[in-house]
């Protein structure tokens, strides 16, 4: 446990020294990045030992006599701590070359400071053992990430994004507080451990409130609205951390509450499963319709949160209907996807940051042909795209495979549950297909073909510290994809604290699944090597010519003729036009010789579209009626306070 606090202090020292050194740009960056990453490394070391020993670590201290600050690190916490420290370490390294605006030295140092605070608060959230510690760390996490989102606060849309994020994270926190409040009113204790004492109705209420609260952090549809705004606004390494880990803290919250309640109602599983399916499909459909690379990745996070929730939902249904194998597969698949998504999504965000750095734009239809000049970025992003589409032999496949297997185990269930299981399997298949479509679109439009604008021409690849984390993450994608065994066991162990109660022989059967994946991937690699060897033989001694692309008889091709991302996605989006209405703006074509014309299209997010009409306006109208309470007279305000205290003292 001392190592844990040591790592936190080292990370904090990094943040503080960055602030102190804000006049020396390069020194500040190197000190900040070194301290933060080495702090994370200590944390990683501690957590690995913790996982290996398999004994929970505890720590508690009295703070101001009344509130006990308590930490408890079990297998579930350790699993998330590994992600937090691992990804943050790479993000800190990445930040060294990424933050290159020397004229914004102070803003950069503030960014390092809040970055360190964000890492610390995330680690404390997953280690927290009572409500006070949890809420305290949770709020620090929300606020520090808010300051990171508004890093480039000069642009008005970034401030708007920050505001939206602030509102969402605090409304979410209110829901979590409500859930905690219900718990406290029943048990009279701030400890997490006594939650089992609640009545069943109270447990359902607690779960629903906590699910909404944590879901708004995780980006579950329809509480995901802040995500596509906040991610493009934040610097790329921050987006990587926020999308890779911070939103998973919401998943951690859901799992923790579920475990603590110890109440395995079928309803919980159904809620989570349905939320997962809706987020998964809508997330990827909206992703397909995006024009901005980082917005696209943000929506893709919504999709992957959906996949995680489908896995967890299958696990919960397995627990409540007494099918331990289904529960084990579902939960492990969900946890594996938490790990995998953290790896490839941070890789993709880092790649997006590199693209933005080198070209100055994130608009996909302005880019093209980057792979020729940016070989490492392109190749690692290709690996990330393959992995996130869930294709073998990459890591995304492993988690989806486990979730599928869990789902199939559940087809033996009864009517209503069976229907939702069938829908879950089919929606996973549809999500897989759509993810393939959207990532071929992004990779094809951004990295392949020819440059669509002058910005995408003559690019180069610079920044060693940006490339190293990307290479490392791409390596992890392949490693987990080919040798999933260790990670699958880790994920399965992290869920053992939930009390599913699986027997050792089940785990054996389960490990065999990962062995099969390793075998099949090895054979596939052998095939590829054989085919490549055959290819070399076939081409031996032949002259290979280079020419322009066959234009089907057209002799004057231009880069403008290339298929754009918008057109690539158009027909699929038409299929989903019910949930993803397209808004188009274009000038009319007039006369025989029409002049310049413009075309603009946008895929509307139904949650965003109706949020204003259904939630914001009614609430504003209600509060406008209550305006008379806020009259600005200080005497009466003091009267309100007295009145409130009297009511609380005597009547509650």
């Amino acid at each position, binding site marked *: 446990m001392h190592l844990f606090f040591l790592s936190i202090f080292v990370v904090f020292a990094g943040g503080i020294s960055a602030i102190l050194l804000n006049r020396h740009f390069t020194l500040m960056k190197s000190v900040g990045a070194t301290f933060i990453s080495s702090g994370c490394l200590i944390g990683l070391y501690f957590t690995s030992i913790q996982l290996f020993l398999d004994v929970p670590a505890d720590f508690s201290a009295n703070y101001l006599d009344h509130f006990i600050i308590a930490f408890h690190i079990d297998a579930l916490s350790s699993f998330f701590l590994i992600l937090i420290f691992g990804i943050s370490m790479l993000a800190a390294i990445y930040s060294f070359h990424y933050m290159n605006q020397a004229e914004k030295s102070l803003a950069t140092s503030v960014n390092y400071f809040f970055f360190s605070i964000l890492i610390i608060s995330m680690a404390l959230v997953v280690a927290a053992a009572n409500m006070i510690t949890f809420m305290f760390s949770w709020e620090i996490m929300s606020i520090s990430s808010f300051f990171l989102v508004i890093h480039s606060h000069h642009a008005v849309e970034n401030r708007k994004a920050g505001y939206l994020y602030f509102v969402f994270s605090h409304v979410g926190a209110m829901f979590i507080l409500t859930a905690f409040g219900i718990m406290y009113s029943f048990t009279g204790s701030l400890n997490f451990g006594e939650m089992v004492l609640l009545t069943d109705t109270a447990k359902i209420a607690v779960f629903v409130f906590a699910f909404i609260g944590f879901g708004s952090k995780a980006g579950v549809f329809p509480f995901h609205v802040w995500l596509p705004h906040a991610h493009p606004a934040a610097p790329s390494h921050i987006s990587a951390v926020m999308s890779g880990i911070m939103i998973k803290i919401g998943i951690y919250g859901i799992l923790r509450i579920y475990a603590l309640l110890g109440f395995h109602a079928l309803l919980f599983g159904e809620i989570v499963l349905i939320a997962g399916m809706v987020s998964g499909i809508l997330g990827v459909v909206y992703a397909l319709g995006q024009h901005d690379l980082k917005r696209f990745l943000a929506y893709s996070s919504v999709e992957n949160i959906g996949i995680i929730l489908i896995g967890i939902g299958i696990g919960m249904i397995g627990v409540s209907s007494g099918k331990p194998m289904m529960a084990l597969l579902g939960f492990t698949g969900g946890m594996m996807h938490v790990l995998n998504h953290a790896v490839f999504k941070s890789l993709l965000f880092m790649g997006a940051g590199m693209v933005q750095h080198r070209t100055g734009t994130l608009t996909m239809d302005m880019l093209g042909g980057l*792979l020729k000049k940016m070989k490492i970025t392109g190749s690692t992003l290709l690996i990330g795209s393959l992995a996130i589409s869930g294709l073998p032999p990459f890591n995304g496949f492993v988690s989806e495979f486990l979730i*599928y297997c869990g789902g*199939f185990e559940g087809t033996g269930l009864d009517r209503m549950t069976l229907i939702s299981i069938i829908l879950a*399997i089919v929606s996973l298949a549809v999500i897989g297909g759509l993810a393939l479509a959207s990532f071929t679109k992004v990779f094809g439009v951004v990295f392949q073909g020819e440059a669509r604008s002058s910005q995408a021409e003559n690019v180069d690849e610079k920044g060693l510290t940006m490339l190293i984390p990307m290479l490392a993450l791409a390596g992890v994608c392949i490693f987990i994809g080919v040798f999933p065994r260790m990670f699958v066991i880790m994920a399965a162990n992290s869920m053992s604290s939930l009390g599913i109660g699986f027997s050792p022989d089940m785990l054996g059967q389960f490990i065999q699944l990962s062995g099969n994946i390793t075998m099949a991937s090895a054979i596939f690699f052998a095939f590829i090597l054989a085919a490549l060897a055959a290819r070399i033989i076939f081409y031996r001694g*032949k002259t290979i010519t280079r020419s*322009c692309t066959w234009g089907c008889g057209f002799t004057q091709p231009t880069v403008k003729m290339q*298929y754009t991302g918008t057109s690539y996605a158009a027909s699929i989006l038409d299929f989903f036009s019910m949930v993803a209405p397209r808004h188009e703006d274009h000038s009319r074509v007039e006369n025989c010789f029409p002049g310049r014309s413009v075309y603009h299209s946008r895929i509307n997010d139904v949650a965003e579209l109706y949020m204003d009409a259904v939630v914001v306006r009614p609430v504003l109208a209600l509060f406008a009626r209550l305006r008379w309470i806020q009259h600005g007279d200080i005497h009466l305000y003091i009267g309100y306070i007295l009145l409130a205290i009297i009511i609380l003292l005597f009547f509650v």
Partner: protein
Amino acid sequence: MIQSIILWLISILLAPFFAAVILKVKAFFGGKKGPPLLIHYYTVIKLFQKSSVYSTSTTFIFRMGPVISLCASAMALMFLPIAGYRPVLSFHGDIIFILYLLGLGRFFTIAAAMDTASPFEGMGAAREAYFSIICEATIFMILILFFKLTGKLSLAAYFSGSGTLDLWETAGSPLLFVVIAFFIVLLAENARVPVDDPATHLELTMIHEVMVLDHSGPDFGFIEIGVFCKLFFYSAIVSRLIAPFNPSHPVLNGGVFIASILLIYVAVGITESVIARYKMDKVPKFILTSFVLAFFTTIITLEFLK
């Protein structure tokens, strides 16, 4: 094991022959003599002897595309029980692995198409990505039914030994719908009429052919073999569904298998001869029919099984 590997090799070697049967059937309907049955072997050998022209727009992905799509299709055949014999490889959930492996092949075919910067290839790629989504939903729907019937999740369990016969015995006539659904998926996934016309001359109306326009020489030969393997994979599944018999004599068994598989290729040929390619916006509805059929079968079967 040796026997399975030999069968696997034979199936890869025979796949181009069966594909030529379709051409013969189409020629018969057109009142023509048609190309020889070994036409595809001649084509592939000719391609392997040639060299390639690469577009200046392309990168290494363009060269990886054919390799990976061939490997994916050839590897899928390893999991397929041929003539009811045990496949080379089999494990719980192998069918999911295969579907996603074919997805990997599709990813690289699309990526290779996008690599050329050609508007036509981009158009073909978009269609390929779109239609395969619905196909995948259908196949998973069928898998749910099969899992429900057998409790297993591998091709070997469904199509080797008496597996297919047991499927028919438990499910009965509703399985006919599955056969039709699978046939529709076969047509869609392998770029056949009425989804795609491999023989058309206009690039705008193609799906698969337009995606490989720029490939030439041995690379194109790889793609062709991969396409034949993939067609054989789907055809073998459908043929096993319509002829689930297992005569004990190996020659008879092989004869039944080849006859049933020829039947499927002839059926594909007849479909191509009598139906015109659908308009592009009608294709998703056509493929969705297969999903509805599979869903329908699952629901009735589950209701009667209780």
